[in-house]
Structures are given as C-alpha cells and as structure tokens.
C-alpha cells in the first residue's frame, strides 16, 4: 500500500507479441496485436472503438482466452504456455481484473469479496484479514461486512478496485471501468484505480472508448479492427 520501490529490476509487467485471435465461427471478428510492452508499474490506456477487441485482448492477457498465435508474458511468464490449473493460479497471484459491471460476488460482504481474491493468491492465509481490511479502509469502505449489493455504486467500485490489487499483482487489467459513470465520477474512479495500482506496485492496462481518458495516461495504445490496414501496435505511444 506504500509507494512502490524501484521497479527497474522487475521483469516487464506485460509483453504481447504478434497475437492473433479469431472467435470461432464469428466471421470477421477478431483482433491482431503486433507488440505491446508494459514495464513494471507502467500504466497504459488501450483505446479503440467498440468491436476492436479491447475486452478480448484483456481476456487473452488474463489467460481466459487462447490466441491462435503469438505470445503473452505477464511478469516474465508465458501465460499460454502454462497448463490450465497453473495458469489459473498464476492469474490468482499476478493479475487483477476490474470490470465495468464490477462483477462482485453477490451475497458476499465487501470484506469477503476481497478475501475471495486472496484465497486464490500466494499470500499467506494469516495475512488475508489484515490485507483485506487495510485495503478497504484505505479506499474508504467503512462497513466492510455489508453485503456488496447494499453498498452504493461508488463503494462497489472501490471494493472491485481493492479486490483487483489484493493479491499484490504485477498487472491490473481494467475493462471499461468508467463506462457507466458520469464524467465527474469517471475521473474520480480512474484516479482511484491509477493511484491504487501505483501504491500496490501493479502495472495497469486500462481500456476505454472515452477520449477524455487519454489525458490521464502517459501512454495510449490504439487498437484497430483487424484488416483495417492499421496494424495495432504500430502507433505505440503515439497519442500521448
């Protein structure tokens, strides 16, 4: 939760190389990503209109989808080279995810939602409680035992953020985290996500179709639909 130390000795949080993905059966829909590298702790905005495969790319990075070709390394490890269970455990310990709809566990308390992430991490069990309470406290959630569905939308988002960084991941993937918020709340939300990632030493790959988000990121990566002539990856850093 404190500011990160020197990150230069850590492997790149993310390296994507020549990834091609095509949904089976879905004609024409897919994505290509030439090259994308995030250094440890680096924050990158991934832009692109709807249908360009931003969410799909995040799921590929998380190891939830297998690309037809290419390579994805998170924290120095080839995600898709790992067999299923190892990949799941790796995700549990190295990757946090934030969704537009939060995807909190309904019926569970705020504390339990964060603890659930810790259950599958490599942190020692004895630290779960302190870690979860500490994170929620620092994000301003006082009623940690309230069921998440009883919390305000803003608080639910904070729980989702706390859950994403709970396992001390190398990389946080945020999929349109501000899409359902008004501009003011969207700004606050992205600030919270960025700051929390920074404090927890996690790199951040955030998708958004909102152009106003660009100014908040030092680096913006555009993703274009495959076959559009623009090979994604070529414009790295271009819009910053």
């Amino acid at each position, binding site marked *: 939760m404190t500011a990160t130390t020197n990150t230069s000795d850590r492997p790149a949080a993310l390296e994507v190389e020549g990834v091609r993905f095509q949904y089976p059966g879905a004609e024409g829909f897919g994505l290509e990503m030439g090259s994308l590298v995030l250094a440890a702790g680096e924050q990158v905005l991934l832009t692109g209109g709807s249908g360009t495969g931003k969410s799909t790319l995040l799921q590929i990075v998380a190891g939830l989808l297998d690309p037809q070709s290419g390579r994805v390394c998170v924290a120095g490890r080839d995600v898709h080279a790992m067999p299923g269970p190892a990949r*799941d455990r790796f995700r549990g310990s190295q990757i946090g995810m934030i969704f*537009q709809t939060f995807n909190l566990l309904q019926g569970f308390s705020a504390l*339990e939602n964060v603890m659930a992430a810790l*259950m599958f991490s490599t942190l020692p069990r004895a630290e779960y409680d302190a870690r979860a309470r500490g994170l929620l406290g620092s994000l301003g959630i006082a009623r940690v035992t309230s069921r998440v569905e009883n919390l305000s939308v803003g608080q639910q988002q904070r729980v989702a953020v706390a859950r994403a960084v709970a396992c001390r991941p190398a990389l946080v993937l945020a999929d349109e985290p501000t899409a359902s918020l008004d501009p003011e709340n969207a700004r606050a939300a992205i600030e919270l996500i960025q700051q929390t990632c920074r404090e927890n030493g996690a790199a951040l790959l955030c998708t958004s179709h909102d152009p106003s988000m660009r100014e908040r990121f030092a680096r913006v990566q555009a993703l274009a639909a495959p076959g559009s002539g623009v090979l994604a990856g070529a414009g790295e850093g271009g819009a910053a």
Partner: protein
Amino acid sequence: MNDWTIIRRSLSSRVLSTWLTSLSVGVAVALMLVLLMMRDSGRRAFERGSGNMHLLISAESDPLSSVLNSIFYAGAPRRAVAWTKFEQLPRLAPFEFLIPIQTGDSFQGLPVLGSTPEFFSKFKPDPEQGWRLREGRFFEREFELVVGARAAAATGLAIGDRVPLTHGMPRRRGEENLPAPHVHDEFKFEVVGILEPTGSAHDRAIFTDINGSWIIHARDLREAAEIEAAKKRGEVHVHDHEAEDAITPADLRPDEKPVTAIYARVASRPGSDASAAIPATFSRLRADPSIQVAQPAQEISRLFAIVGNVDQILLALAVVVFLSSGVSILLSMYNSMDQRRRQVAVLRVLGATRGRIFRLVLGESLILGLIGAVFGLLMALVGTHVVALEMRARLGLVLEPALTPTLGALVLGGAIVLAGVAGLIPAVAAYRTSVARNLRPLG
C-alpha cells in the same frame, strides 16, 4: 473466508430451495431408516409372546389366526376345543406342558385370559425370561386376577381391587353379528398380582383362573337354558341370582369347560433337543381333524413373509423416494446454474482452477445431502419412537427400534453418495463454464 463460506453463501442465497431439497432427502432417509429399524424390531417383538411353547392347539379354522388370537389377543376365537379332547391330548404324544387357555372375555376393552396356575409356572412368554411379579402373587383359585404391566397402567387396577369382567370382546367392524358384550356384575374378581413387563402382547392382558371364566359362562348357558325351558312351559322366567346356588369348579360339566387354545411344549428326553420331536408331534396332532395345530414360530415367519412383501414394497418405495430426492438435489443445483455461472466466472478470474470450482459445486451438493441425512436421522428417531409408543399402546408389542451404527452409517453414507452423484452433473457444468462468455456485462 474459505471454500466453506462460498458454499454456505450459495446455499443461503436460495434458502427455500436448500431447505426443501434437504427435507426431501430427509424424508427419504427417514422412511428408509424407519422401515429398516421397524422390520427387525417388529420381528423380535413378535418372536416374544410365544415364548417357550412349541405348539398351539386350537379349534380355529386356520393356524395363523389361532396364533394371532390366542398369543397376540388380536380377537376372540370363534370356536373352542372340547374339554374331553383336551384330556385326550397327553395320550397322543409326550408333552412337557399342556396349558389350557380361554380368551374372549375382556375388562375395559383389554383381553382377559383364563388359564391354570401352570400358565405362570411353566409357560414363559420369553424363552429367556419367565414371569416376574411387580406386586402381589399369581392367582391360585377362581375369581382372582393377575394384571399385565400395561393393562395395569391402562386401567389403574391395584392389588385388592374387586371388579366385574365383560363377557365378550368389544366388537370390531364386521363383527356386529356377534353377541353384544355384557358385564357380569354378579361376579367380582379380585386383583391379586401385578406383573412386570415382558415385552410381549401379554403385557396388555389380564389373567385369571380358567375355572372362573368357565363358571361365568356356565351360568350364562344354564340361565339361557332355563329361559328356553320356561318359554316352552309357557311361564315367565323370573331370574333370581341370589336364590341360585353358586357354581363351583367341581360342578362344571365337561361341555361347560371350553378351551379356546392350548399352549403346548413337547417333552424332550434329558440332554436331547426337543426340536426333533416337534415335527413328529405336530403331524400326529394334525391328523386329528377336530383340532387345529400351529407352530407359532412358523406362523410368525409366515406372517412376516406376508408383511415382508409389504415392507419390501415400502422399501422399494423408499428407495424410489430416495432416488427422487437425489434428482431434486440435481434440479436444485442445476436451477441455480444461471446465477452460478457468473459467480464461477468471477471466481475463475480471481484465480480459482476448474478443479476447485468442481469441488465447490460437488461440496455444495454433499452438504445438501448431509443436511438431509441429519434431518432424516432425527425424523426417523422421532418417527420410530412414535410408532413404538403406538404399537405398545394398541397391541402391547414392545418394539425396541435400535439405530445400529451400521444401519446409521449405511443410510448416511447412502445419502452422501447419492448427493455426490446428483452433484456430478452440475459440477461438470460448472467445470465447463466459459469464463470469457460469462463475464460479459450483464448489468
């Protein structure tokens, strides 16, 4: 926060379904346990009662009803063995005892059995255990009563009470054509002994010297004959009990000494087993068409063969209920699949492996089975207790339904295995749940 929390939350998120499902497992488990527990204890209870008798001799039309009427007091025998026949029996075969009994009278609806003092000295209701008195003594002469333990509890009879008996049993459905029971107020019987429980149907009976029963009936018969004779003479018969001479046992004519059944034990040479002599005696007695002879143990086995069919049907039914409760586990788990898919996807994102998800869902199913099994166990214990109380109150049969560890483990294990099998399909479905597809924004 651990796997158990996740299972618990999942179960409590559909409380009604969880309880109903466990209840259906519980009912199945209880049904099965009650049947299994009752079957054994019912057989044991029926095996008591005939005790150390080998043969039951009567004039009834079939051996099973003779056993039910004369040992279990199911009803009043319709026909009696003549006294002259009874006196001939020892000549047919060597007997260790031949005890005449007469049933058909009652006191407050409880059966009265008339017999000789040998009924207490030689016959044992339980081969291992003879009669024991809680109070008083056994009867020694006519008009004395010894009260069975449950009969004493039911009637409140105590030593020294003097009560009249009722000739005839309360009529049951279909017996409206039998003579109405009537109370013999003119004969008072004195309670001289109260028995300890024997665990047999005899506990709800009242015992008296057979001479007393005969005297009452002789009086009835003689009175009826007088009225008939008076009618023939055209006189009005004025009945005056006081003026009549009391009938004594010695006055009784052989035709006034009906015996509804005879408890018989075949004599055995010292050191040899009587069981060899029973069939021979049995077939010798069978040759006499005027009497019915039954081997109580065999009749009870035959009864249980009949009842056994019924309880096999019931058991089959219980198995069907049991299996359908498995289906209800499956449905309950499967119906929650839509709600579960999203949760599974989220857990997978958080790092849960497919195997862990599989175990979580299977675990949930097992918990449903376990809750159901515990329900069922409790219901079975209460249920058998209630049935046992009822059987004791109505039939005097002491059922001691025992939940043996083997039986308990078998049924519990069965419920858990069933739940495990029922949980396999939902668990596989959860295992195969696509994370990417179920993370789509659902609102």
